[in-house]
């Protein structure tokens, strides 16, 4: 008994103990959450829905109305949100674009201010004002099953690459606006961006690009994200500018350095 305790106390001071405990704690919290969360999901009742809308309205009044107006009717500095739909709210708020950090050229992606539940409430509230694009459900987003990488690439190059670059790395627009990178964006948000046309982006309706085609685009983006760096360091995948920079600095730099060394007098 004594021995066992001694052995245990020895382990207590082992350097792996803290990380292991941390992982265990996180796992248990995560499991608890997912179990608890699973219980609340499922089809919601009308009463729950109106509670959600009411909650969304309260969040809206606190966090959004100073720019978008008390009834989301818009103002000089922000557009009306009547009819933009739940998809738009989900895209803008869940990717952290709204609320904006400052009144710069365009809202940028950042850590979201509201949690999932709050975003859901906000979306429900804005959707209750007037019909608009809905948040695509999980069953609609099965791009692995319904998309084709090659077709997606072709569609991406035809419709998206002119702003988002051939590899989805993003690019510059006029007056400081820009098309952000599409790498690391969740399929749901990519889909929502296509149907709502946030900021400078046009709307790609289901007539222009069908839902299956949208899934193909998502599948191609995910493939591009996962593509290994064939041929060595990718240099940002932004084209010949970085290549030229490297040729002049590293390439010519090394060669001129060697030339200096070769021409040095032996001492």
């Amino acid at each position, binding site marked *: 008994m004594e021995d066992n305790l001694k052995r245990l106390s020895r382990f207590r001071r082992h350097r792996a103990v803290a990380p292991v405990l941390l992982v265990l704690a996180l796992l248990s919290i995560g499991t608890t959450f997912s179990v608890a969360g699973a219980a609340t999901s499922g089809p919601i009742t009308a009463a729950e829905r109106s509670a959600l809308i009411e909650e969304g309205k309260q969040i809206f009044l606190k966090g959004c109305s100073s720019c978008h107006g008390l009834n989301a009717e818009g103002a000089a500095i922000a557009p009306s949100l009547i009819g933009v739909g739940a998809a738009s709210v989900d895209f803008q708020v869940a990717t952290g674009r709204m609320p904006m950090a400052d009144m710069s050229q365009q809202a940028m992606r950042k850590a979201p201010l509201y949690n999932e539940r709050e975003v859901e409430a906000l979306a429900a509230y804005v959707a209750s004002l007037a019909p608009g694009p809905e948040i695509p459900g999980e069953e609609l987003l099965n791009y692995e099953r319904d998309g084709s990488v*090659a077709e997606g*690439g072709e569609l991406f190059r*035809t419709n998206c690459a*002119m702003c988002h670059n051939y590899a989805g790395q993003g690019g510059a627009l006029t*007056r400081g606006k820009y098309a952000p990178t599409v790498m690391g964006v969740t399929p749901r948000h990519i889909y929502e961006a296509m149907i709502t046309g946030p900021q400078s982006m046009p709307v790609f309706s289901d007539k222009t690009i069908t839902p299956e085609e949208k899934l193909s685009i998502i599948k191609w983006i995910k493939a591009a994200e996962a593509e290994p760096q064939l*041929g*060595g360091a990718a240099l940002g995948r932004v084209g010949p*500018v970085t290549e030229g920079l490297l040729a002049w600095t590293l*390439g010519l730099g090394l*060669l001129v350095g060697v030339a200096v060394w070769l021409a040095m007098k032996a001492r």
Partner: protein
Amino acid sequence: MTARERIAGSVANYVDERTGAAKWMKKNLTKVFPDHWSFLLGEIVLYSFIILLLSGTYLTFWFDPSQREVIYDGSYEPLQGIEMSAAYASTLDISFEVRGGLLMRQIHHWSALIFVAGMVVHLMRVYFTGAFRKPREFNWIIGVGLLTLGIVEGFLGYSLPDDLLSGTGIRIAEAIIQALPVVGSYLAFFAFGGAFPGEAFIPRIYTVHVLLLPGAFLALITVHLMLVWYQKHTQYPGPGRTEKNVVGYPLLPVYMAKAGGFFFIVFGVTAFLGAVASINPVWLFGPYTPAQVTAGSQPDWYMGWLDGLVRMAPPLESYIFGYTISWNILIPALIVPGILFTGLALYPFIESWITGDKREHHLLDRPRNAPNRTALGVMSITFMLVALINGGNDIIATTFDLTINQIMWFSRIGIFVLPPLAFVITKRLCLSLQRADRELVLHGRETGRLVMMPHGEFVEVHEPISPEKAWLLTQHEQVPPLALEEHDASGVRRPKALTNKLRARMSRAHAVAIPKATAEDLKQIENH
């Protein structure tokens, strides 16, 4: 005599009896070359050319220069089943199916970037040291021709794979051809064998890229080197170096070893880049179709300045007698480069006209001792840099959180303001350096040692510089400006008075210098 020497001797004798090479070899293998790192810049270009020939030959074994439509069925999944040209499909095959193909493609492309970059720094060395002066004006022109061909050759290589980026480049080239007034549209139809893109262009530029231009390069490089050989290499000034001798090491064994080793180093650095850094990842661009374009469409760096000039041009167009004249393309893409390259080629003649100097020069100038030339060079580089920066305006905008419009206006104004500013600053810097040289000769090196005199005064001890150093700082000649009087001795106005006036003014500007320290100056100080 050992057996080995006997065999070597009889082999050499056998060859000599049949070629008579011994005398020529004996003379030329001991030819002396001066030693300086900047004389190796041209070698970087030469070796890159060899690397380009070798790697390019490898690529031709699999490249199919055809715009015939095929369906891709190779191993790169994101493009499977897509329609594309055979040229693009075979480039993908080189990248993914051919053993060593991707490495070879990347070596070829990196080498091309270094090839042109090497030419530019070599040109800068020749320019800033005045190596282009008589008798080397022809070789200068050949050099400018090689640079121009290098840019064209690089652009054709960039265009061959028929990916989205190269197709966009060809589209812009077509627009530039079309911008030629009157004949433009006809020329474009002629070049493309009909309307853009057609099926003729890739096969045609392939022939030019792998046959015509490499042949022209070989011929011009040969003449370029033969002239260097015949006229002997220039050298930097120094004790014992004159206009009539060359101080250095013999070709054999010293330079054979150095140059041979340097070739492998250039190959090594290029292969290293090809192995670790991706260049022109054509599989990401996708096949070219005229309906598509991508953000960040850029040419390779040596065309970037041209792209930058076009990007900053305001939208100007005229309609004259039913013809459209696109000034926004014509001026930045044809007129300005035409003036720049013509001026570059003619510069040796222009300078000799200004200075009236028709003598031979084999000793190089230190850039500070030719302030006007140096300032003009820095001015040109500044112009090119502003244009180049605007060529990458979108990448710069997203990287540094700027707006494209800011960068465009910076370039539009900067292209006029910054080069003259660079001229003035450089000229002043050169004159300041001349002043510092004079100080150094007259008063010696500051040692940083402070000494207190008996009466309490502090003085810094100056140490005289070595005679070699003093020679280097005073060996250059300071030529007075041309005396071009407006009126001749009898008071009659000379013909071409205006030209003479201009020439005299430029000559005066060219001859501005701080008087170098002379022996009398030194004596005066010593007596002092």
